[in-house]
């Protein structure tokens, strides 16, 4: 792409990356250096910092090691069109994405901790849920849907069913086909998912804070939060910023070589035309697949989400969720005119963030082979790992004079924080696009925009939909940044609920999650049904 369109894309990227990533990061670096350089050695040599770094790294490695194989396995299992209840499984796998982190953490506690749902129903409790093991399992269960989505995108844009069928026809066993054809083709998608999960886990906060604290398990992000909580003391505030800068440096050290290594080594060129027909396996799908899926989903989604729904409909924590204790009070606390306004604002913000990020992520992916594209992809990984509160501080210091209390500064925060979520799934799909179709379209007289719209976009549709949905859902229930950036008349839904009931009142927070889920699932489900009908008509 060396046309005016490419130059426009680069200009757009540079302007946006400067506004939502470079400026806040420079602000944080300046604050840390000017006000905190005298304490840098003290912060780094603090033994607690060392253990927090070790915990953060250990957690990231463990979560990546758990979530990536599970997510890929689920995506491959759900590829079979004859799997019983495939559409249900596909939707169920994504459920954790709909629930805010901190609510999900409480849900796991209500499901598995002492006196939880599993204890009441089956006489089984899992004490380790509060501690490093619990944190790892919960964060991994949150990461699996993301790995699944990226892998599905990879399957729809990168896999080659014809080659797989040829392998099977030549006598290769399914495992051999998987090992020698499918997984190598999926390499970039899996690598993308691994890097994304590693970075996301480095920056995760809610689960370590809620689940890890009782076991004395601290991470860099929980230490940043503790310093911010004491931030009326300027030294604590600057320590928090310094820790955040160190977290960015750690991420830079990890992500840059990983991107270079994986991006270069795993790129492959398409050998066949797009083919969505997976053909038929030689045997009926094994009953083990739905059983394994069911067990996994009951453990990671079923019981925690059941605990969440029961919390939303039960009058008090600690009472049995029997009909006598059912109430709508938690919903009435959420369903107010103020909440309605905030919900509309949150939906608009989420739609705007998802749509703008789709363009930005697509441009970044399209330019991923250029130096500027690679630099942008590393930069947006840094803002992804930054705790939301710290990114919000960077934006407030950078733009507070002009944009404080406006909805625009919240939108900028979403763009900065979620850019990598939009970019990486698209990037995993874009590097295998066959250029022949594009060249043919251009040779037939189509201008570049028309060629892109008619040839490239249809091929990238799964990746684009996945990226948009991820950004939309994450923005919809985001709370840490908006709670710091909002002003009069710009409250988001999560802020209104946070303000009307501190996070400890889990019933109200659970009701909010149920409400958000309904708001997303009902129209989404209706659209999906309409889409299916139109395809089968």
């Amino acid at each position: 792409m060396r046309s005016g369109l490419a130059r426009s894309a680069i200009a757009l990227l540079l302007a946006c990356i400067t506004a939502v990533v470079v400026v806040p990061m420079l602000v944080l670096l300046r604050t840390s250096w000017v006000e905190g350089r005298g304490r840098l050695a003290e912060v780094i040599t603090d033994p607690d910092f060392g253990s927090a770094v070790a915990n953060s790294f250990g957690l990231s490695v463990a979560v990546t090691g758990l979530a990536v194989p599970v997510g890929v396995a689920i995506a491959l299992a759900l590829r079979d069109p004859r799997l019983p209840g495939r559409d249900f499984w596909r939707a169920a796998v994504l459920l954790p994405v709909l629930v805010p982190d901190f609510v999900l953490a409480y849900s796991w506690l209500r499901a598995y901790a002492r006196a939880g749902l599993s204890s009441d129903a089956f006489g089984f409790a899992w004490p380790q849920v509060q501690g490093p093991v619990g944190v790892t399992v919960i964060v991994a269960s949150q990461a699996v849907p993301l790995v699944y989505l990226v892998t599905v995108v990879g399957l729809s844009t990168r896999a080659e069913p014809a080659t797989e069928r040829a392998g099977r026809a030549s006598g290769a066993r399914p495992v051999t086909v998987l090992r020698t054809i499918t997984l190598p083709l999926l390499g970039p998608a899996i690598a993308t998912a691994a890097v994304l999960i590693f970075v996301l886990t480095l920056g995760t906060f809610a689960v370590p804070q809620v689940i890890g604290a009782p076991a004395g398990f601290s991470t860099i992000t929980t230490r940043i939060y503790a310093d911010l909580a004491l931030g009326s003391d300027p030294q604590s505030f600057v320590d928090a910023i310094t820790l955040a800068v160190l977290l960015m440096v750690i991420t830079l050290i990890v992500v840059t070589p990983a991107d270079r290594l994986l991006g270069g080594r795993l790129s492959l060129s398409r050998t066949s035309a797009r083919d969505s027909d997976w053909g038929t396996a030689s045997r009926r799908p094994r009953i083990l697949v739905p059983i394994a899926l069911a067990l996994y989903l009951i453990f990671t989604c079923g019981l925690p989400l059941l605990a969440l729904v029961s919390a939303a409909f039960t009058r008090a924590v600690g009472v049995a969720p029997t009909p006598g204790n059912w109430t709508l009070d938690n919903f009435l606390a959420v369903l107010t005119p103020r909440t309605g306004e905030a919900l509309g604002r949150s939906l608009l913000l989420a739609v705007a963030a998802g749509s703008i990020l789709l363009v930005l992520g697509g441009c970044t992916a399209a330019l991923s082979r250029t130096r500027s594209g690679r630099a942008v992809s590393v930069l947006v990984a840094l803002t992804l790992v930054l705790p939301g509160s710290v990114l919000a501080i960077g934006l407030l210091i950078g733009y507070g004079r002009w944009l404080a209390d406006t909805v625009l500064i919240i939108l900028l925060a979403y763009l900065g924080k979620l850019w990598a979520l939009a970019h990486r799934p698209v990037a995993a799909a874009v590097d295998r696009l066959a250029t022949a179709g594009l060249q043919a379209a251009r040779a037939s007289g189509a201008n570049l925009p028309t060629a892109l719209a008619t040839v490239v976009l249809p091929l990238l549709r799964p990746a684009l939909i996945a990226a948009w949905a991820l950004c939309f859902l994450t923005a919809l229930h985001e709370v840490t940044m908006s709670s710091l950036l909002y002003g009069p008349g710009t409250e988001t839904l999560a802020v209104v609920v946070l303000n009307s009931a501190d996070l400890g009142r889990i019933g109200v927070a659970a009701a909010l999650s149920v409400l958000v889920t309904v708001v997303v699932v009902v129209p989404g489900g209706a659209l999906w049904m309409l889409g299916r009908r139109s395809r089968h008509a």
Partner: protein
Amino acid sequence: MTTWRRRTVWLAALLLLWTLGACGSPTATTITTATPITLYTCVNDTTIQPVIQKFEAHAGAKVDLFRAPTGQLNARVASDVRSGGLKADVIWACDPLTMQDYVAQGLVGGWTPQTDIPETVRTPDYVGVAFLYMVALTRKSAPAPAAWTELSRAGKVAVPDPNVAASALGALGYFGPDFYADLKDKGAVQVSTPDDVATGVAQGIYDAGMTIANSAYAVQKSGSPVTVSWPKPGAVAIYGPIALSKTTTNSGPAQDFVSYVASRDGQTIVGSSGSYPTLPDVAGPTKPEDAPTVNPDWQSLASQKATLLSDYAKIFGG
């Protein structure tokens, strides 16, 4: 993409941005008779909304509110300071240590209203207008402690993190690290906030815990099987002070607001909306008759904060 389709996309994008811009516009109900007062606070919505409504009706002025937990409030103030100065006209904090830090930075203070609120919760820079009380919360099935030293007899105990909650720091300042070391030896765990303690005890994850009275009575009132007690020598009292910004350009209405909150009328609203007023003879939320209370020495606590937290970290980890 055809020309009309491109135009439609552009139009939709512009419409979306315009709508987003409109989201931040004042609503039709906005009072525009005077410059609004900007209030920063960590006081919960249950209390702050009625206070603001009554004041607006009483004074005909408007209050723009930024409410957030203490951590976010601190971050907001610190960001303001680094981007042109504090934007609040009034700060209503939830503990004296936070306010002392703001005074030390020259952000607030220099004026307090005429009020009957006791000297013990006042300084020349700010006045305490609401109390938080750190109380004991136990499961119905566990023995309620008559004294703090008996807390661990209830079974598994949870305490809030003094690095996160100022009320927990107040308790740490009053009891001292040895008290916490003893709890830890008997199997106590540390959670994040007092609300987390209340939720955990209510569910049954813990048998007992230290939490603030508002949270404790909220879970009890909702029907959770818990008992709230005010152990001897007393529930730790943490007062929430209110102060005037030193850089306010709206000092008249801002002083009116502070005066109103510290007045009998304001304290009555505070008491009837879920917070404990500091004016002694004004009714507040549930508090047993003759319930003992104790007050940390906030001045010395401010100077010992780093040492206390460091000692505490050796007990519960950092």
